[in-house]
């Protein structure tokens, strides 16, 4: 069976999140669960247009056999997705990639650091951890967006703010008059939290430019290099370790990633 043949699926729910992002809830036609791990991605296929890699944005423990894709409209395929409605059919290949290392974060204090659209793949892990909250230590979420209207999953994000079992800090680069929380770049949120380096893991997802500064903060706070996890993006064409587009030095993001520990990622000189 060719690995290029997508499974057919339907859009079962659609929600506009911001002026350039929508949340698609997808269910496979054959009723199967995608059976993914948080941190993995799928190749979304639209016949006649092509395919693009999109991170899975929901936890596999959610039930009801559906999964979420948060899509920013920025290229050929994603702009075509923008025009779709509930019940429209798409093709799905995957899940691909290694996902977040659940065995490495089990029982630890977790600091989630999300830059912009990075909250989308992190949401799969956050939901996963919150579903089994008692299996983890302290949960801290640091989330930075450009402006208040760019905050994704805002209803859910504010439930995390209200949740006593989570320490959550949100910042925007540029505020408006309605904003009464932090203003400034994401790394400065580290000032508002305390970290126990011996028991902490950091899970970071965001645009390439953000990683250096956030990793610097994580290291300054004593977190071990092997306990810092990051997700790297590339424009895969196959998801199968063959097309070459996701290659970073000697590794394939679609096979050996997209999640890397900083200890390994720092050896990849082309990573950022």
């Amino acid at each position: 069976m060719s690995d290029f043949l997508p499974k057919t699926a339907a859009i079962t729910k659609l929600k506009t999140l911001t002026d350039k992002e929508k949340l698609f809830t997808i269910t496979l036609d054959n009723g199967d669960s995608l059976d993914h791990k948080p941190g993995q991605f799928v190749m979304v296929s639209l016949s006649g247009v092509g395919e693009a890699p999109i991170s899975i944005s929901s936890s596999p423990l959610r039930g009801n056999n559906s999964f979420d894709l948060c899509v920013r409209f920025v290229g050929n395929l994603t702009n075509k997705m923008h025009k779709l409605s509930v019940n429209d059919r798409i093709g799905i290949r995957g899940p691909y990639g290694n996902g977040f290392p659940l065995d490495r974060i089990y029982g630890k204090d977790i600091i989630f650091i999300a830059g912009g659209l990075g909250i989308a793949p992190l949401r799969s892990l956050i939901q996963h951890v919150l579903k089994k909250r008692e299996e983890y230590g302290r949960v801290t979420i640091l989330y930075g967006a450009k402006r208040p209207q760019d905050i994704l999953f805002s209803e859910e994000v504010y439930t995390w703010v209200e949740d006593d079992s989570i320490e959550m800090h949100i910042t925007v680069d540029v505020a408006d008059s309605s904003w009464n929380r932090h203003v400034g770049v994401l790394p400065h949120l580290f000032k508002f939290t305390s970290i126990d380096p011996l028991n902490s893991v950091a899970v970071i997802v965001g645009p390439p430019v953000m990683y250096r500064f956030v990793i610097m903060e994580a290291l300054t706070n004593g977190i071990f290099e092997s306990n810092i996890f990051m997700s790297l993006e590339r424009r895969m064409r196959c998801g199968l370790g063959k097309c070459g587009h996701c290659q970073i030095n000697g590794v394939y993001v679609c096979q050996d990633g997209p999640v890397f520990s900083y200890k390994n990622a720092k050896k990849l000189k082309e990573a950022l």
Partner: protein
Amino acid sequence: MEELLIAYSNLNDFISQLMGEYNVIGPVRKENKFAFEPLESPSDIVIDYQTTILPPSKWIYLNNEALLEFNLHDIKKTKAIVNSKRQVILFAHPCDINGINVMDQILGEAPADLNYLKRRKETVIIGYECLKPCGEKNLCFDKDYHKAAGGFDLLFTDIGKSFYVHVATQVGKEIVSYSSFFKKVSYNDRNDLFNVRIEGAKEFKRVLSGNVDMLSHHLKDSYDDMIWDVMGKKCVSCGACNIVCPTCYCFDVVDEVNMDMDTGCRHRRWDACQLNDFSKVASGENFRRTAAERVRHRVFKKEVYLKKRFGRSGCVGCGRCIYSCIAKISILDIFNQVMVG
């Protein structure tokens, strides 16, 4: 391996026999160069050819290979396509046979590429042993890729008046057994083979400085060297080196809709890591923005990453990238520079 003989005078008839059963792709003259093309007649071939423009591996790893057929209005009509036709690649040089072997390893790695593997299974490889180098810049001898220990079904060696034929596989055995032109080798024939090989070995010269086994190591040390900037300034990012390389396989996936606006095809198209947009993403970020980074990546992929992942170098020393480069960048010069630096 079984060893047989076929006289020069029987070669064309043997090729005719093959053409009756298979699509036979062999080396033909193309103006002042050579190319692997489907034969229309046995006499088209040039036995004593120099490196072809494109390697024969491109007949197994096709450009514009169809992956899926789809219907724009009914997603359930999407069908995977895994197509191939029995074919013979006739008289591939050992460097190119080694190139095909490397491709077999790369595309056979899980998840394996069905399209390539199916066509590979239906391709018979008849090799032609090199008794002299094709050009001055070929580094096949340094990499020991001027010889093929395996990866072929039959291997022909010219011993004068006849070809000595090594039969390596069951498929090769079936081909020769259906043909009446092959007879067992004699003691004299074995002697002749030994002698032409001794004479042939004298023709090859080393062009790489130092020990080729240290090449990967020296390259890794040179990651931040000036040499990449120097090459980057010359490079025009045309991708010619990628297209002519026996072990380049990167691809793009493209959907094409037919004129009926109803049906279409998703196919893969050869891509080139040297092109500017290869590592570009939709947000505009380009992860290898400069030609220097791209040149370095190609050399590292061939000599460092593939070697680490599969235990053998992806550069077979055929020299095609050197001969095709518009900017006259030579991977041999790059290797020699890092070996002495």
